[in-house]
């Protein structure tokens, strides 16, 4: 069960490329077990380490800088998390300590995977994202109930973001999606009963 998230203050790191795919977030070679755990070492492995499979940090990757050690917010460009559906990308980020990702837009499947793993994906207009990305060591506070973002280095600046009630509750209350859906079990069973009359062939298929 992910840790609930309501208000979060944290240090941000900007990785300003468009189309950062889940292969970059966690390369497949770093998925070593049938497990959700132990993935944070492989986070951004291709950029973070000097050798494939190695653990010697590169000098230029932002998360390797000593002053970024407490990073809990990522800032990025368009279509962040596109590509493979691997939820391992969200698991790796969460385990590393990322709670919020602010991007110009997100890959669809990754966006859903974040919500289910205690990570708040925030889409902001490109010019607002660029403003935040331009600040070295931006300290950002995110208020989920208020749907707003502020930045210590930008006094007076404020941005609001869209999020539905369901994903908001998923994050702030740590809802258990399966248990929630099963509260509608009667409706679901009624649907399948009616459907089995409508499409009997599907219910008798091998």
């Amino acid at each position, binding site marked *: 069960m992910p840790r609930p998230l309501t208000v979060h203050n944290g240090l941000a790191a900007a990785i300003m*490329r*468009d*189309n950062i*795919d889940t*292969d*970059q977030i966690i*390369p*497949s*070679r770093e*998925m*070593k*077990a*049938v*497990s*959700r755990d132990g993935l944070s070492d492989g986070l951004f492995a*291709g950029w973070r380490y000097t050798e*494939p*499979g190695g653990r010697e940090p590169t000098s230029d990757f932002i998360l390797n800088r000593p002053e970024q050690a407490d990073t809990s917010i990522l800032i990025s460009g*368009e*279509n962040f998390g*596109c*590509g*493979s*559906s*691997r*939820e*391992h990308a*969200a698991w790796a980020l969460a385990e590393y300590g990322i709670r919020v990702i602010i991007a110009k*837009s997100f*890959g*669809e*499947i990754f966006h*859903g*995977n974040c919500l*289910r*793993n205690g990570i708040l994906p925030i889409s902001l207009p490109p010019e607002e994202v660029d403003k935040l990305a331009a600040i070295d060591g931006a300290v950002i506070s995110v208020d989920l109930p208020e749907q707003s973002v502020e930045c210590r280095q930008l006094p007076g600046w404020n941005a609001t973001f869209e999020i*539905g*009630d*369901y994903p908001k509750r998923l994050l702030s209350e740590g809802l258990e*999606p*399966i248990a*929630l*859906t*099963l509260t*509608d*079990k009667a*409706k*679901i069973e009624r*649907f*399948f009963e009616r*459907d089995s009359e*409508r*499409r*009997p*062939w*599907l219910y*008798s*298929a*091998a």
Partner: protein
Amino acid sequence: MAQTLFDKLWERHRVCDAGDGYDLIAIDRLLLHERTGGVALKSLQESGYKVRDPSRVFAIMDHIVSFRAGRGRNDARSPGGETFITETRSMAQAAGIHLIDTDDPNQGIVHVVAPEQGIALPGLSLVCPDSHTCSLGALGALAWGIGSSEAEHAMVTGVLRMQKPKQMRIQIDGALPVGTSAKDVALYLIARHGAGGGQRCAIEFCGSAVEALDVEARLTLCNMAVEFAAFTAVIAPDRKILDYLSGRPFAPNDKTGIPAEWRDLKTDSDAAFAYEIVLNAADIQPQMSWGTSPEESAPLGTEIPTDARSQALDYMGLEPGQVLNNLQIDGAFIGSCTNGRLSDLQAAAKVLEGRRVADGVRAVCVPGSQNVRAEAEKLGIDRVFKQAGFEWGEPGCAMCFYAGGETFAPGARVVSSTNRNFEGRQGPGVRTHLTSPAIVAACAVAGKICAPADLPVPQKEPV
């Protein structure tokens, strides 16, 4: 009220309004593979939940299986990969779901196997923790990729909590030029409108050029929808689809006949879409990617844009304004859920007939499924590949993505019939150029980037 095909698919699977703009959508069939499905099964086992209806869930081994000829039952293509196979197998058996195992005569890539076996059908809702599940929309199914947690959710509850996506129509009319394939259409679309161009929409492909595509080519086109940031893609099923599906194991059989609800699986004439794109098929030329996103693609023989991203060019070892043609290649791969079907292999074999792969090029062909392989071997296509110097592998995802272990060398330039040219996708430092199977074959023969028409006429083999 006029409805799109997608509206109809959505409405027929809508269990109830779940509040806050969400619906519960019934899932007809669920596909799993060992890479992301195993962890869903494990989490289900640990939670104590049961699979609501095991007869609707299919586990298929494809991602990590070895593609070496004569592979053993547990052989993986990456060190430590066996555990994904063995754990998924035992959990699938314990859960009582269908299992298409590594040694099953129907094994293959999930998105190749699902249509072959009639698991994917018009009008069905299908999900899989794999982004290329959108391929199956080519049959007129509501099919999309999900995460592992959602797969667990769907297995337990029979539904997913969904927000209905916006819709986009992509109409492609006219005739594709000779030598242009569905893969070229996809790369052209993504290059023109960007990797984010699909805007999370459910896309309907239509128009005379789409209708003219055979079933396998439609699967290729819809496969690439996720590279366009689409929620999924769908094509209205027609006679070709019905003929293709006739007699498939999990399809309705002769006794049940064609289900009545398949008959109106098409968009009403005055239905509205949020976005429309119109393409002229005659404008589409054979494409090849030059960068590290599928949007960084261009017609073969044209120059890389002068304002191309330097990160992409540095990774690919290229310069702005450069033309790819005549660049030496080190590797060639034909296979994957994008282009690993029989017609793809046939298109490549046509180029390879009587020719040989250039020295210094490692060329690999991995059929998308055991059925594709068997069919190809019956037609003698395997001999064409082998005589040309291609490795002929055992079905699976193979070299489409690197999972550890052996691959092309860092810096190697590889032409590939796959779907992603991301940094490191085929191995650390490997430079992937996406293109169609026929062009991959031509490049393998020439040892450099070229079009099939650039190859000299093959020498006749002595009788």
